[in-house]
C-alpha cells in the first residue's frame, strides 16, 4: 500500500464526487425540501447518461445533448409527480414505478445494455482523460465545479423567489401551505421535475466522464445521494443554515464520500462489499437523529416534569 497511489486517485475521486454532487443536490431538493424520498433518481440518472451518449454518438452538438438529457430527467420527474399527485400513489411507490419503467426505456434508448463513447472520437465536456495534462479550463474538476457553482447560484435565487418559497413551504407544512393559497400538488410536481432534471444532467456528465452509459449505472444512486446529503449535514450542518450553504455542503459531502470511497478501496476492501457498506453508513446516519430524539425524550421524561396536557 503506497500513499502516493492513493494520492494519485484523488483527482478522479474529486471529479466523480463533484459530478455526483449535482445528483446529490437533486436528491436534496426532494428529500430535504419536499420531504419526499424519490427513488426515480436510480433510473433518471441513467436516462440522462443514455440520452446524452446516444445523441453525441449521432452527431448532436454537446450543449443540445446535455440540455436534452436534462429535459428527459424532468420528464421522468413529471411522471413520478403525476403518479403521486394525480393518481394518489404514495411518493415512494410512485418513484419505484417510474424507476422500473425507466429501466426498459433506458434499454430502448441505448438499444442495448451498454453504450460507450470514445473521448478521442467525440468532443466531450468531461472525461477521465481530462484530469491532468490539459489546460485548467479543460480540466474536468474545473468544468464540473463551474457547473455546480452555476446550479447552486440558480437554485439559491429560485428558492428565494415567491414561487421557490412556496415550494419550500409545501415540503415544510402542506396543510399550512394550502391554507395560504399554495397549490401543493403542482409544487410537488415542479420540485420532482427540477430534481430529476439535475439528476439526469449529472448522469449525462457521468457517462461522458467514464466513457459509457450503462443500464445499471444508477443502481443505488439514491443511497449515494442521501449519503452526500447526510455527510454534508453532519460536517457543516451546525454553521451552514442558509440555503446556498446547504447546497454547497451537499456538493462537498459528495466529494467527501468519493474520497472516503477511494480510500476504502485503496485499503484493499473487497469492492463487492462497497454498496452494502454505503447502505449501512446511510442507515446509521439516518438512525442517529431518531435515537438521539428518543433518548433525550426518555431522559427528560424521567428527569423533568411530565406535561399532562391542557
Amino acid at each position, binding site marked *: 500500500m503506497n500513499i502516493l497511489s492513493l494520492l494519485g486517485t484523488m483527482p478522479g475521486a474529486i471529479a466523480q464526487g463533484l459530478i455526483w454532487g449535482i445528483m446529490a443536490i437533486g436528491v436534496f431538493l426532494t428529500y430535504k425540501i419536499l420531504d419526499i424520498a424519490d427513488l426515480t433518481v436510480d433510473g433518471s440518472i441513467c436516462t440522462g447518461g443514455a440520452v446524452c451518449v446516444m445523441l453525441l454518438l449521432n452527431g448532436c452538438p454537446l450543449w443540445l445533448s446535455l440540455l436534452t438529457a436534462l429535459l428527459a430527467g424532468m420528464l421522468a420527474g413529471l411522471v413520478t409527480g403525476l403518479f403521486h399527485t394525480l393518481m394518489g400513489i404514495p411518493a415512494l411507490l410512485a418513484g419505484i414505478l417510474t424507476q422500473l419503467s425507466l429501466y426498459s426505456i433506458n434499454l430502448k434508448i441505448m438499444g442495448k445494455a451498454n453504450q460507450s463513447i470514445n473521448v478521442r472520437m467525440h468532443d466531450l465536456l468531461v472525461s477521465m482523460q481530462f484530469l491532468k495534462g490539459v489546460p485548467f479550463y479543460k480540466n474536468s474538476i474545473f468544468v464540473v465545479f463551474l457547473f455546480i457553482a452555476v446550479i447552486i447560484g440558480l437554485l439559491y435565487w*429560485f428558492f*428565494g*423567489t*415567491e*414561487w*421557490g*418559497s*412556496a415550494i*419550500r*413551504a409545501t415540503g*415544510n*407544512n402542506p*396543510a*399550512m*401551505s*394550502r*391554507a*395560504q*393559497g*399554495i*397549490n*401543493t400538488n403542482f409544487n410537488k410536481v415542479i420540485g420532482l421535475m427540477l430534481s430529476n432534471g439535475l439528476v439526469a444532467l449529472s448522469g449525462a456528465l457521468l457517462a461522458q466522464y467514464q466513457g459509457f452509459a450503462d443500464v445499471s449505472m444508477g443502481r443505488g444512486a439514491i443511497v449515494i445521494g442521501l449519503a452526500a446529503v447526510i455527510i454534508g449535514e453532519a460536517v457543516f450542518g451546525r454553521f451552514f443554515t442558509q440555503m446556498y450553504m446547504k447546497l454547497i455542503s451537499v456538493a462537498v459531502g459528495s466529494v467527501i464520500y468519493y474520497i472516503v470511497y477511494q480510500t476504502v478501496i485503496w485499503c484493499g476492501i473487497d469492492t463487492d462489499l462497497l454498496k452494502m457498506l454505503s447502505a449501512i453508513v446511510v442507515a446509521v446516519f439516518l438512525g442517529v437523529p431518531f435515537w438521539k430524539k428518543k433518548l433525550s425524550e426518555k431522559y427528560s421524561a424521567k428527569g423533568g416534569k411530565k406535561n399532562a396536557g*391542557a
Partner: protein
Amino acid sequence: MPALDLLQITKTFNRGTVNEKRALENLSLSLNPGDFVTVIGGNGAGKSTMLNAIAGIWPLDSGSVLLSGKDVTALPEYKRAAYLGRVFQDPMLGTAAGMSILENLALAARRGKRRGLAWEIKKSEQARYQELLASLNLGLENRMTSKVGLLSGGQRQAVTLLMAIIQKPELLLLDEHTAALDPKTAATVLELTDKFVKEKNLTTLMVTHNMQNAIDYGNRLIMMNNGKIILDIYGEEKKKLTVETLLHKFEEISGSEFANDRALLS
C-alpha cells in the same frame, strides 16, 4: 350581501362502510359582514367539519358554499384560501416550522396572489411585518429571522393569527385556536383575536370549547349537535346568556346532556 352562505350542506365520511358518519346534515347558515360568531357544541357535533367544509378540504355530498355571494363550492382548498384566514387548534399546523417568522408572514401576505419569480422578502415589507409583530406585544419583532419551530405554542398561534389577517380575509375561521394553550397564553391570544376582529371588522367564525368565552366574545352564538345548528342567538339576547341557561337550552333541544370532554363550563 351575506359574507358567508352555507346552503343545505351535507357531508358524510366513509360512505358505504360500517364507519359511515353523517357529520353535517342539511346545514344552512348565513353570516352578515362583520358578524363575530362563536360556535359551541359537544364532541363530534360537526364544528370542525363545518369549518373544513367552508375551507374546502374535501368535496361535499351536496349543498353549496358562497363567500360574499361567490359560489366557491367547486374551488379546491388552495384557491378558496384567497378569501379565508384560518387558525387551527394545533399550533404546529398553522406555520412552517422550518421557515423564519418573516418568511411565514411573507407567504401569508401573498395568499391568493400569483407567486412568481420576484424576490420573496422585500425590504419594503419588512417594516410593515415588524410593526404587525410588535402589535402582538410578544417581543417577536426582534426575532423576525428566527425559525418558527423555535417559538412556543402560544407564540406560534399568535403568528398564525397574524398570518390569517395580514391580508384582510372575507372570513376568519378559528377552530379552537386557544385550546392547546395554557390558560394565560390562551387569554392573551383570545384578546389579540378580539382586537384584530374589531379593528379590521372581520367576519369571524370561532369554535371554542369554553362556554364563557363563547358568551363573552362576538355578537352571535351558535350551538351545534349531530351535524346541525340547534341554537342561534344574536345581539341583546346573547349578552344576557349565562353558561347555565346555555346548558339548559342544550338539554331542552337535544334531549341529552352536553358532552364535551374539553368543555369548560365556567
